[in-house]
């Protein structure tokens, strides 16, 4: 049994907005072990980023954690003073963001921004920090690292900037790395480079990685375990192979069927009808039921609990309810080419 690094229990995060309070994350629990990669997948707006920002306690000013517990190495993060939390961020736990173009401060040099965590958390001298920064840049594969230190972010391409972000996040050898769609804004060729880099570094540093993405391809590439979110809820969780080969939740299935397969010319798309609900849409029962082909009456009224579907594989769907009488024509029997 691997050591649990991060544990999130019953997280509820909501926003104060002009239209009242909105729940962006609804009772989500998950954990990340040392040395493993957990992928959170889901479509835009389902609450992936907010979940990760909740963990970092970096929510926008109008957001707050309403409920739940977040434990890093068994220590509850919510109880920490802001100052203690600050010492953890960038040190034991760090984060990479989606937009490499805007995530770096345009008026500070790469060197300054890279040195910052080292000076803060490792109390290095400026000189030592510079030497380490160069080393970090080399690690993430940036050519001529010593020259880069005096450059500004706008002088670097998107891929380079994302590497700098990674270098910055890894500066203090965090035990947990949160990567919020680190490659979405990048070209495939660059994406491949970055994904490889994160994988390599993870293995080298034995980090836990919480990777957020909406791309099933990326999930397949990097994940050890996967958690699927829909409209603020976790709807399925399991080892990556289970999820791809034996998906339980109709949404997960739909997601897999919506992505054209490059390697399969015969593949036929099967879209999920309808649109993602808005945060403020009141939906009774299962939040997916209005779009679900297999929705039953129960789905409209009762929120499905988590059902176990295999080793470490859980799904929140009444169809996964083993105790219930089997439905005719089990929809889970889909043919997936693997």
């Amino acid at each position: 049994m691997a050591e649990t690094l991060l544990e999130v229990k019953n997280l509820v995060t909501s926003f104060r907005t002009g239209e009242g309070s909105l729940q962006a994350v609804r009772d989500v629990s998950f954990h990340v072990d040392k040395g493993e990669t957990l992928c959170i997948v889901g479509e835009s707006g389902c609450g992936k980023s907010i979940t990760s920002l909740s963990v970092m306690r970096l929510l926008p000013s109008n957001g707050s954690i309403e409920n739940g517990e977040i434990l890093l190495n068994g220590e509850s993060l919510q109880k920490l003073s802001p100052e203690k939390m600050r010492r953890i961020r960038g040190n034991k736990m760090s984060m990479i963001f989606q937009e490499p173009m805007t995530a770096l401060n345009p008026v500070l040099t790469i060197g300054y921004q890279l040195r910052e965590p080292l000076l803060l958390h490792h109390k290095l001298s400026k000189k030592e920090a510079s030497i380490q920064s160069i080393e970090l840049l080399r690690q993430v594969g940036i050519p001529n690292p010593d020259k880069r230190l005096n450059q500004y972010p706008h002088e670097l391409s998107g891929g380079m900037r994302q590497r700098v972000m990674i270098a910055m996040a890894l500066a203090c050898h965090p035990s947990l790395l949160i990567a919020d769609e680190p490659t979405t804004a990048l070209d495939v060729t660059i994406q491949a480079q970055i994904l490889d880099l994160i994988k390599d570094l993870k293995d080298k540093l034995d980090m836990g990685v919480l990777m957020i993405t909406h791309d099933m391809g990326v999930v397949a590439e990097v994940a050890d375990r996967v958690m699927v979110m829909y409209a603020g809820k976790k709807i399925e969780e399991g080892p990556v192979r289970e999820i791809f080969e034996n998906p339980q939740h109709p949404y997960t299935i739909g997601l897999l069927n919506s992505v054209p397969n490059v390697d399969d010319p015969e593949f036929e798309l099967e879209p999920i009808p309808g649109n993602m609900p808005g945060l403020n849409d009141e939906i009774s029962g299962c939040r997916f039921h209005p779009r679900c082909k297999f929705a039953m009456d129960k789905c409209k009224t009762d929120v499905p609990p988590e059902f176990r579907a295999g080793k470490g594989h859980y799904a929140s769907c009444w169809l996964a309810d083993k105790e219930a009488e089997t439905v005719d024509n089990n929809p889970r029997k889909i043919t997936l080419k693997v």
Partner: protein
Amino acid sequence: MTTAETLELKPKKREKYYVTTLKRLFKNKLAVIGLVIVILQILIAIFAPFITIHDPIRQNLANSEMPVFSEGHWLGTDNYGRDVWSRIVYGARISLVVGSVAVTLGLVGGIILGMLAGYYRKLDAIIMRFVDLLFSFPGILLAMLIIAILGTSLVNVAIAISIWSIPTCARIVRGSVLSIKEKEYIMAMRSMGASDLRIMVRHILPNVSAPIIVFATMRMATAILSTAALSYLGLGAQPPTPEWGAMISQGQDFMWSSPHLTIVPGIAIMLTVFAFNVLGDGLRDALDPNMDLQQ
């Protein structure tokens, strides 16, 4: 067929754009105060004859320089014995009319120039140089020169202020046009073969309206202030017009004996300008789509 399958969850709230804006505006207390003052002022201006008992230009030399809260003249009288309250009330008319004429003229000029400059690269350099030229004159000086040519009158003050608004307005419009021009819906209209005029009038103009509304509101404040300043310098309202700036200028001679003659119109100007400013500020926030996620 897939297309028919598109089912809707729940019809999204249908809310007109301005309704949303107004709702957001009403959340801003300061802006509401501004709006109330502005509306009050408009009402005062419209119903001036009904809320005053004295003719604002009727003199009564025997009753000159009466202090505030005098009988029959709750804000006192000036050195000609004219009722200060009546003059303030009728002054509101002048401020509003001159302000809105000036702002409207300035907008028309600014929008045309800004649109052309933003839309046609070739015209941009020429128009913007001209705009820079106007811009590098200190505003009040520009107004003074214009009044020197046209003569002293409120109409000319309005013209002068409008000319002085043109460069700022043109810049704002140009900036917005430049960014909107790159939007895909403009590209889409071009790909549909829409004429430039149609694109400018039907598609760009409505979308620069937000900054223009904000500008117009704020400019109203500036225009009222400038009208007062020019009248104060003796370049605006002709006596015995009850213009606030002119009232301050005249009252200043009596600062010692009758301070209310400057303080009352001063406060009137301040309140009005303040109201337009907060309203403009509030509108800017309310019209800013990013504001949705805040508060």
